[in-house]
Every structure is written in C-alpha cells, then in structure tokens.
C-alpha cells in the first residue's frame, strides 16, 4: 500500500510526513507534485502542513486550485482515505470537502507547543486502531487554527459524529484551559459525512518517535495501514 504526500509550493511538513510513513513505519510513500494530474496509484493521500502559497489571500485558498486537486477530489469522492494535516486541513476546508473555516488563534499569535487531543470517533481510516477516548500528546504549530462554524452546523457535525479529535487536558477532559487556540467546542479535527476524509490541526507526523517528545501520533498512520490491509474494507457511509 502506498501513501501519496502532495507537495504544494510552500509545503514544509511534506518531508516530515514522508519520513514518518516511510522510515518510521516502513510503508511505501511518494511525493506528488502539485502540478501532477494523477495520484500514481496511491492508497492514502496526505495533504501535509506548511505555508502553501505563503498563506496568501487565505490559508489554503490558492492550493485548492492546484492541478492535482482534481485527482484528490475524485479520490475522496470515490471513498479513498485522505488525511489533511494543519495547512492540509485548511486546504480541505477551502475545497468544501469539510465544512467550516479557520480563524486566527485567539492569542493572535503563532503557537508551537505540545497539546493533548482526545480521539472521539474510531470509525475513520485514521483512528480505527485507537481506543475510545484515547488521549494523544501531539504538537501544534499554527497561527490560524481556531476552527469556526455556525452553531447549527456544529450541531450537525456532532449529530453525525464528525468531530474526530478534541483538545483536552492530560486526563482527557475537554476544558477551555486545554484549548490552545479558541476552536469552537474544542474541535481539533473533523471528518466528512462519508468518513473517509479526516483532517486535524495538530501534527501527528511530529509525534512518531519518543526522541521527538511523543510517539502518540503513530496511531493515525497505523490505523490507515491496518484499515487498508483488511481487504479493502469500505467504511459505512
């Protein structure tokens, strides 16, 4: 099975996602340049973190028009697993594959630090080997990670069990003090209604080795590998 890591002009964490999947997990991984028109037979697509197009206009707003995105959208529509990390999350919001938008962190500053997130939903390709309510120590590094959606849309997300990760404290309590950026309802990550497109602001690829401070991020990639190994099971819609 193969991970495809899309590289936009300005992507930075593409190398980190590649290192985690290929060197730490021993999976097959490949870079896909944003001008490519296909995904080269990828089984999982990762939209990595960084500052695609310098965050000009709005974060992710220009990347969403890159030639490769046509293939990514088709792949997602067909039920293929897509993981958006940080800037990747922002790009997916711009495509409309995920609802809502990102505001500036309430501190109005870029923040790089370890946070805790709780896994809320196991029925996604990227959390299926986690345990219910599992607390992961993963770093964030963003200036615009304050997730926003109107209240009725948030209610719908909750009703459809689309909130996959929430910021929490070390014990797993979702409290405001544990919310680093002011995200609505402590939302750190979401999935689409089809449950194959998952995105989160924290960087699991930075938490795959204890030398990096935490290996809690492994579960995200291990889930994808496990999911695909079990005979190409398609998740219920």
């Amino acid at each position: 099975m193969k991970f495809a890591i899309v590289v936009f002009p300005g992507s930075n964490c593409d190398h980190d996602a590649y290192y985690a999947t290929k060197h730490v997990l021993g999976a097959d991984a490949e870079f896909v340049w944003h001008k490519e028109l296909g995904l080269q037979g990828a089984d999982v697509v990762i939209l990595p973190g960084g500052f695609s197009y310098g965050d000009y206009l709005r974060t992710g707003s220009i990347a969403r028009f890159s030639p490769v995105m046509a293939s990514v959208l088709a792949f997602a529509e067909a039920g293929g697993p897509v993981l958006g990390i940080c800037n990747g999350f922002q790009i997916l919001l711009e495509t409309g594959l995920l609802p809502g938008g990102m505001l500036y962190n309430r501190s109005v500053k870029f923040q790089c630090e370890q946070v805790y997130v709780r896994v809320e939903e196991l029925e996604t390709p990227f959390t299926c080997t986690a345990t219910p309510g599992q607390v992961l120590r993963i770093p964030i590094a963003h200036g615009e990670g304050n997730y926003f959606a109107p209240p009725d849309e948030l209610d719908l997300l909750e009703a459809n069990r689309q909130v996959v990760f929430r910021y929490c404290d070390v014990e797993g309590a979702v409290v405001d003090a544990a919310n680093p950026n002011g995200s609505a309802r402590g939302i750190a990550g979401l999935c689409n209604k089809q449950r194959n497109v998952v995105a989160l602001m924290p960087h699991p690829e930075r938490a795959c080795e204890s030398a990096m401070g935490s290996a809690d991020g492994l579960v995200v990639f291990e889930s994808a590998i496990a999911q695909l190994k079990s005979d190409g099971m398609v998740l219920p819609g």
Partner: protein
Amino acid sequence: MATIDSKTLDHHGLSREEYQKILEILGREPSPTEIGIFSVMWSEHCSYKSSRIHLRTLPTTGARVVQGPGENAGAVDVGDGLVAVFKIESHNHPSFIEPYQGAATGVGGIIRDIFTMGARPIALLNSLRFGSLNDAKTRGILEGVVAGIGGYGNSIGIPTVGGEILFEDTYKGNPLVNVFCLGLAQAGKLVMGEASGAGNPVYYVGAKTGRDGIHGATMASAEFDEQSSEKRPAVQVGDPFMEKLLLEACLELMQTNALVGIQDMGAAGLTCSTSEMGSRGGVGIDIDVTRVPQRESGMTPYEIMLSESQERMLMVVHRGREAEVERIFKKWDLHAVSIGVVTDDGQLRVREGDSVVAEIPNGKLADEAPFYNRPTEIPGYLEQVRHLDLEALPVLPAAESALLKLLGSLAVTSKHWVYRQYDHMVRTNTIAPAGMGAGVVRLKGTDRALAISVDGNGRHCYLDPHLGAMLAVAEAARNVACAGALPIGATNCLNFGNPERPEIMWQFARAVEGIGEACRALELPITGGNVSFYNETDGQAIYPTPVLGVVGVIENASSVLNRVFPSSQSAILLLGGGSGVLGGSEYLKTVCGQVAGSLAPLSLDSERRLQQLLVELAAAGLIQSAHDCSDGGLAVALAECCFDSGGAGADLMMPDDASGGRTDVAEASILFGEAPSRVLVSIAESDFGIVRKKVEIAGVPIAAQGQTGGDRITISLAGRKVLDLSVADAEAAWRQGMERFFVNRAA
C-alpha cells in the same frame, strides 16, 4: 557626467580620502552609478574597513574546517560525509526602524547565505537585545521583531531551535537582532560564490527588483538621530514564500553540475554579488540592467545596482547548460534570466542597453577597499565603573526573596512567551525540548546530532571587554558541552558603537583579542561572522556586545542532555571550583541597582578540561542532566534545574561556610555571585562512584554535592541552610517574568 560635490559624498558616506582613491582607481571622475557602487562596497557593513585589521588575528583553521571566513558562510566537517555550514549575522538598524520586516529580512538574509553554499538549512537561532519592557516603544519593537522572526522562519519551514534575549537600557534606541543559521551539505559538494570561465552566462534568479532597501548598507554604517524615521524606505520587505521556492529550486539545481558559482543578493544587492563573485574568481562581469526583472517602472541603473530587494540570487552557469537551469526554475515558477556574461578583462561593467554606465576594475573594488587601523583609547568610564565597595551596599534582602526577584527578572525569566511563537519542530529533527539549553538537531541517516548555542553579555564586556568576550566564547561552548556535544566551530557577531571614536575601537580591539585567546585555548576555529558598528544614538553607544554562535557534535544522538533534573533520586554534583563574585552580576544589577565591579577570572585551561569531561560523561551515559551557572549564579542555576521536572526539588550542600566581611554579602556572593566554568550535573545513584572517579582523573574540582527530591530548593553552607524555597513558588515566579508585560492581550 554630474560633478561630485561634498554633499554627494556625505550622502554616500564617502570621505575625501576615499574619493581620492576612487579617482586613482578609475583615472577619471566616477559616474553616478559608479559613486553608488563604491559607496555601498566601501561602506563599513560591506568592506569591514574598520574591523579587518583586528579580525585577521582570529583563529580560523582546524582539522575540521572545510571553509573559513571569506565565503558566504563557514563550514566544518561533522562526520558521515556531512558538512555543517553556518554563520551569524546582524540586522540591527533595520529592526529599530521597522521591527517586523527588519527582523524578518535578517532571517531571510542569513538563510540565503547558507543555501547559496549548497547546504539545506536545518536550524535557526537568534540573539536579541532590547531596552526595558517598561517602555511601550520597546514592547512594540520586541513584538515586531519576534513576530518577524517567527513569520519568516515558520513560513519557510526552518525550525528556530534556540537563542537568547537580554534586556538592558543601553539597547533602548539600538536593539540588536543577530540571526544564526545552520545547514547541512554533502562533503565535497559545497558551492562557492565564485565566477569563472569567460563567456559563461550570468543569471539573475528570484524576486523582481524594486526600490526597497537602497542604501541599506550605508544606513547600517551610520548612527541614528532624530531624523531616523525617514530611513524607513531603506528597510527591505521580505517574502518567505518566494525564498522557499528559491531555496528548493537552488538546491535542486545544485544536484546537477550546471552551476559554476552562486551568491545571494543581500546587502548592496547586485553590486555586491557581481563584484565579489568576479573578484573571487579573478574575472570580470558584464551585465545589462535592462534585463533585470523589475517590479517598478523607471528605475535607474543606480537604483537597480543598489536595490536590496529580497529573495534574489546571482548565478554563473556553465555555457550550454542554460536550458537545464531555466527548466528547474520554471518548475518552481521563478524568474531565471540571463543578464550578462563572465569576461576575462577583470572589469565590473554595467550597461543600460547600449550605453556603459559603470566600469570598475573588479579586483580593486572588492579587495582594495579602504583599510583602517583606527586609533584606540581606554574609555574614561572604565576606572570608575570597576570600583565596587561591597561593604557599602545597603542591607541585602533575604536569599529567598532575592532568588524570587532574580527568577522573575527579564534576564532570567522563562522566555516561553517568545519561543512559543517560533516553530521549533518542523523537519522533525529537533531533539532538545524548547527552552532547556542548547538547541539540538539530529542528523537523519546517521547516529549524530548537532548542538548549537548563541551567547553574549554586553554588560560583562562593558566592564571588561577582553574578559567579557572570553567569557562569551566559554559560555557558548559550555552550553554546547552541557548538551553532550563537543564544540567544533564558532561564528561571531560583533555589535559595537561608532568605530571612529577611539574608546569604541578600544573596546572592539580588546574584545577581538579575547575571542581569539579563548577560541585558541578551546580549539574552536572562527569560520566566519559579521561586524555591526554604529550601534549608537545621539552619541550614546550600546554596551560592546560580541555574540558567539558555537556548534558542537554529539556522536550518538541518544546521549543528548538538557538542564532538567530527571528524577527524584539522583545525586547532584557542582563541577568547577571558582567562587562567585558580585561584580558585574545580574544580582548586583537587579537587587542592588548597580552595574559595577570586576568580573571573576576565567581559566581557559580549567574550562577546557570541564567541557571535555562533560562530553565524555554524556557519551558514556553517566550523567542525566547538565546545566551551567550563569546569570544569577548558583542559586538560579539550581532552581532552573528543578523547573519542568514536575515539581521535584533539590538540596545542595557546600562544604564551607561564608567568611570574611559582612555575612549577608558573603552569602550573596556564594549564592548569586557569578563565575565561569561551573556546571551542575545530576547522576543516577548507581553511577555516582564511577563519575566521581572520572571527575578526579580529569582534574576538575567538585565544589558541592547534593541530591534531588522533595519539593523545595535548598542550599546549605557547612550544614547551615541559607536558602530554602518551594519549587512551586520559584517556578511560578520564573514563568511570569515576561508574560506579565503582555497580560492585556487575549489569551
């Protein structure tokens, strides 16, 4: 041609004598474009005319040195076929005028200096100085500078892994922004900034040229006064996205061998890059400015040659390989335009279409820049300021209250407010947690890691420039050794006042001597660096502030150390024998409000032995943490070891009691006095015996012993407790020292 009058010369920062030299070199009067070229190339910033004579005394060679001073950055061999390319540079004057862009473009500039050599940048550090945060303008400058450093570094995806920030009134009108960058290259694959091969095309790549930053080099070569805000147009504007594209494209190009040489366009833009590349190769360069991509209309050749628009590189390409080069840059959507050619007539020739607007012998421009041995004179303030009567100090506060005050002082307090704004983890190489000591990055594909520290103390150098500079070298190297790394190379950034004043020149000369002496003793070659003069406003100079960046190598990354006591069952040793002195100390300034006295002496031999011992013990896995005593002395260092440990405390026992003079002064000297070559290490109880033995063999004295545990920080002298403070209170004071200046902001 316009006549050159004295007003023009002053505007260009050229003296009468320098003008005479121009006439001799050209054999005629210079054109306006030529005057502009000479003015920037012969500015202090570009020519180092006041400093070269002193800098040449520094040690620049060593077994590991692959590239010494003279190129865009220095380089040392780190093993496994890898070379570390690094340098530190200043962007002081622009950061006062326009803090965000001044700092951002400082970061951009040093990054280009690294990747132009063929090295992928993997770490950034910075050394900053500001005035007091009680001043609103200073808070604004700090916010702008930190946002600018973060804005550029985060966007381009290079982690900021360490640094230092100090606050002294002396820097109020002259903040210092020194930025360090380190990159990795394959041995034997470094790319030089040298032009060669008559007929080879000269390429311009990157952003379009505008009018920003013209005379940035000359601005950095003069002091500020009331009209300084008018200098705003001279500050360049940075675009980290553009530089990310440029970086990737250049590194991709360097995989081929189509490139002869490459240099970034930094200070003095096109002028500096063309003349330096030409003179290094002993060749001429002939360019046509009408071919330069421009983003503003009606630019004159003068403006095009002097523009400091960011994110541009100059390349010399092997004739016949142009298509390859252009294809790579097109992939990254960048301009790559042939603007000229290498010649063998040794002239820097600038055309505007058909007419030649400048023609200067290249070698004479770069290599025959003015060279001054400026007069030096011992400053008048020195004798008085060294006088310190400890017995005449007012009654000193209790040790606990003094420690809390120091922990909350800007010198010592946690800088979390700052480094939280820097991405220190991108590229997943950072193995040292932020804020715990030297920055450490692993080298993927090997077992090794590199540790880096930037250090300097202007106040020490104000009191004693020679010793203060030596202490800065020792401190930076010691911080690297405390991470378990062997120091192998250094770069320096020398921040001083007006060199035309003999007292400033005296400070400079003494400091350079001190750096040289310390580097020789510690076997640390200087591979390059930067000098920033004219850091003064209305005749008031900053403290002389040499900043050292030291790089060290850890053979096995898993043996990396930081400052935190790891467990509540460890033994503690204070290695190193010097006694703390209050002269020039943070305690004396923060608690007694005085900057005076003499610094504790430094034995370079003892320092070297201590550092070697630390590296050896770390490599053998025999110590769990290491932290040196610096600002605030022993008590502060001990407290810092307890922070981020989950609340575990420590007890330290010194064998002898305080003696001589007033008890409160004697105790304060022991607890808070400063002296070099002292490190606190923690050791597993089971390793204690073997560590003691190794320390003895190394000839390093043990000044005190102790153990971790409990939830209090205590220090006893001959069994008498003189400090007793809860870790919780100490840590709380330490965490809020900077935060409290920014409480009115949103969470």
